[in-house]
């Protein structure tokens, strides 16, 4: 059934359909609408889950860890500073191999205070062992949330469903909400592999000395790699039931493209329009959308990009002292290929600034004129700043 839904509520509807058992979260803009809707659902009995109120995001994730250790299907949501506060427990969740699902709304980190879209919050958690899935539309948000539970519970790793602040979280779009029967078919009840049981008590996650720690980490690496094929498998199931498929990466008119833009999140939608406009004028360009960031889909990225003449990666994020984070990953993925295109890194849309067709036009112009990529990122749309106040 199609409904016009806010992106936040697309998450909430998916969580309802997933029959989550324990929810805990701390409110933060622009995530709050997600858990507001869920707390209403818990209060009015629409979903039979425990909603635990806590005093911080750190505690929210701690609750998830406790609940997931008892074998429950769990969900939390956060954003920006909230995610940063969870950092310690992000590592713990993956190390403890708990299939927690989190909606993470991309929002810029302070200071200066900014509540708008920016990916640096989630990308700076890339080494915590969480699978990260980036979304482009409200429909993809709902579908990805359902996929996330299936994937998390299969590989016993936590999964982050990532969506842009406001462009997704607060934007209303038509979304097809599947029936409960369909969802039940795709997502059966959790069969926990970790489940504390008072009848057979055990201690979890105690001291692991050097003689075993490394093997434990290697297994996480292995299942992270396995997640690539698991996701593919589940997307097959998903397509069979719901008729939709996304892929770890999604090419748009890349087949014969000389120039390929690499994007993630909502910038992709603008880029699709841009590509259509440019193709109408004879430009051979395409877009490669990256949905799965961890594990990074190296083979797929190589496959779609290797024949391009130039690649431009658009990052709505930045690693100070290095560059755009997707650009680094794409360069690393292509490294080692005998024949590989030059990769140009562009920074655009930080702190929620619009990335328009004009911004993309500037990127294309640069790509066409520049011979070789500079290690430095190219910042798009920087303006002259008039400083006020005393000099310091």
């Amino acid at each position, binding site marked *: 059934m199609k409904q016009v839904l806010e992106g936040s509520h697309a998450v909430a509807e998916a969580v309802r359909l997933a029959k989550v058992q324990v929810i805990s979260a701390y409110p933060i803009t622009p995530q709050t609408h997600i858990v507001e809707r869920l707390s209403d659902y818990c209060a009015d009995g629409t979903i039979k889950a425990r909603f635990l109120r806590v005093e911080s995001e750190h505690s929210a994730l701690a609750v998830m860890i406790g609940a997931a250790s008892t074998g429950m299907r769990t969900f939390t949501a956060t954003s920006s500073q909230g995610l940063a506060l969870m950092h310690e427990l992000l590592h713990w969740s993956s190390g403890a191999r708990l299939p927690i699902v989190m909606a993470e709304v991309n929002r810029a980190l302070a200071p200066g205070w900014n509540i708008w879209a920016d990916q640096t919050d989630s990308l700076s958690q890339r080494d915590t062992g969480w699978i990260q899935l980036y979304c482009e539309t409200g429909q993809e948000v709902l579908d990805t949330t359902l996929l996330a539970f299936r994937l998390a519970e299969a590989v016993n790793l936590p999964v982050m469903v990532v969506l842009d602040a406001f462009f997704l979280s607060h934007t209303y779009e038509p979304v097809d909400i599947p029936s409960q029967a369909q969802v039940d078919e795709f997502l059966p009840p959790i069969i926990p592999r970790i489940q504390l049981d008072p009848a057979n008590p055990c201690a979890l996650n105690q001291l692991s000395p050097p003689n075993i720690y490394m093997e434990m980490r290697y297994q996480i690496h292995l299942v992270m*790699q396995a997640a690539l094929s698991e996701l593919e498998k589940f997307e097959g199931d998903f397509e069979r039931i719901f008729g939709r498929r996304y892929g770890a990466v999604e090419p748009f008119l890349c087949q014969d493209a000389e120039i390929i833009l690499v994007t993630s999140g909502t910038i992709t939608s603008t880029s699709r329009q841009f590509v259509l406009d440019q193709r109408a004028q004879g430009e051979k360009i395409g877009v490669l959308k990256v949905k799965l960031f961890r594990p990074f889909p*190296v083979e797929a990225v190589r496959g779609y990009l290797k024949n391009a003449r130039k690649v431009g990666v658009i990052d709505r994020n930045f690693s100070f002292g290095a560059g755009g984070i997707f650009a680094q990953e794409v360069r690393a993925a292509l490294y080692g290929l005998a024949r590989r295109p030059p990769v140009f890194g562009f920074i655009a849309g930080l702190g929620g600034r619009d990335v328009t067709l004009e911004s993309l036009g500037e990127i294309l112009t640069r790509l066409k004129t520049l011979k070789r990529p500079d290690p430095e990122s190219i910042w798009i749309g920087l303006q002259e700043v008039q400083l006020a106040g005393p000099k310091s």
Partner: protein
Amino acid sequence: MKAKNNSIRLPERLLISRSYTTSESNKTGSWRYLMPRYYEKTAPCSVACPAAEDIGRIQMLNTQGFFKEAWDTILVENPFPAVCGRICFHPCEKVCNRGRFDEAVSIRALERFVADTAQRYKLTSGIEPMAFTGKRIAVVGAGPAGLAAAHFLHLLGYDCHVFEALPEPGGILRWGLPRYRLPLAALQPEIERIRNSGVSIYCGQAVGRDFLHSAGETYGAVFMACGAQRMPLLRIPGEDLPGISEGLAFLCSVAQGGGPGFQGTAAVIGGGNTAVDVARCLRRLGARAMIIYRRRREDMPAFAEEIELALLEGVELLELYAPIRIEKEGNGLRLTLQQMKIGAMGADGRMRVVPDENRIRELTVDQVFKAIGFEAAEPWHVPEAGAVSHLKLRQAVLTQGANSVPVVYCGDPVTEIQSVVHAVASAKEGAMALHVLLTGGTAAVAETLAAAAVGPGGSLSMEAFLKGERLNRSSHVVAYEEINIDHFQYAPRMIQPRLLQAERVASFAEIDLKISAGMAIREAERCFNCGLCNQCDNCRLFCPDLAVRQEDSKRGRRIDYDYCKGCGICVVECPRNAMVLEEEQDS
């Protein structure tokens, strides 16, 4: 295990650390170098109470609705809760730790509530006296000190005969305290309870000095508790004129029948409670009443609250005036008053007053009442000065009388302050000392009494003397800083309901009205129970090692030292400092 991108199989088993061995095999108690233990301490209120009432415990019982147990807990230390719950000057409330948090607990009102509840339901005390010693003791005077002495001596296993010169027992409580402060209906059951416990009270039986010589034939000891009834002279010209009366005699006549109607103006000379009582009774009889006091209002020995109520009732206060002469003028009396002023600080810590040059004021009134303090009525009511055989205690004096019969002096003539609760404290100390003297000799008195002391103030506990549970507490007095106030919420002190102001001077009805059980419980819940365990269970709930175990004992829990690491969290989270953290003893 091998990584290969396209066809990686998920491992069959999770590689996480998981142990099915019980963590109880790790006896973390071996890490401990500090050791917590339950150790109850002393509340400041119980130290300030001359009768050493176990106030923290009384309030704990009140919060649980155990009013009879609360009443028994008072009675073992003080036989007059209905009296002291009304007229005590409550030194306990001045030192209440709650006072530093918001406002002191209304301890006196709760004492009255407990006593009134016991009277309403005609409860009988559950305190068991010690086995009869076979000894009989004579008590001279049935005022608060004499009756309290009989009560305590009865508890200690003695047969008591109380001799009272007046036709009814009660002394100052019956004859001197106005009914609007202490109704007869509140006093009478307290006396009846003492009588019903087995004490014989002989009224209208004045004893003379020779009794001290002949008593030994019948009695094993004599308790002298005659109080202080004689008023010292003003030592000014005209004080013998007709129309000048003694305040206590006036109060006595009022107590007997309401006293004569009185329309004119009366001056009351003095600044103690008797002066205030006289003035307030005069207002009720229809007179204009003026208190004349040579110092300032804040120097008056009368209780501040009583002064406040007197002024609200229309009593006038002339501060810094000393009468120097009284003369007859027509049908009235002319008082000549010397204006006084503040001088230097005296050795006793009070400001001295000196005449303010020749400033004189004259005042014509219809009657004058003297109320300037009391002394013993007869010289033999007090211990003989300078006798070497005297054992001078804090609030009592023990002597060997004729025929080696011990004589104990207690009450007003030997206490530091003339108050009912001091009379009780004095009687208790005298009874304990006499019991030690008769069972263990003079030498044991000081040490035995010290063991029953509550805190450093010298208040003595009968429960501790009888080897009760109070003996197990530390004498350390809990300071406000030792209370974990994070576990308490602000709550205002109860407001004592009273007669409307306009109704007060219209009769001798009691001014302070009853409070409900709900109000009493809420007020008792404000008590920090300083130093006492009230089973709040914080120690168990906060223990990170589950090393505080529940058990079926009186305390309800114990520390399992096999696992207690000595982190001290239980001690810190104990809201009321009923635990202690000590250095581990080498074993």
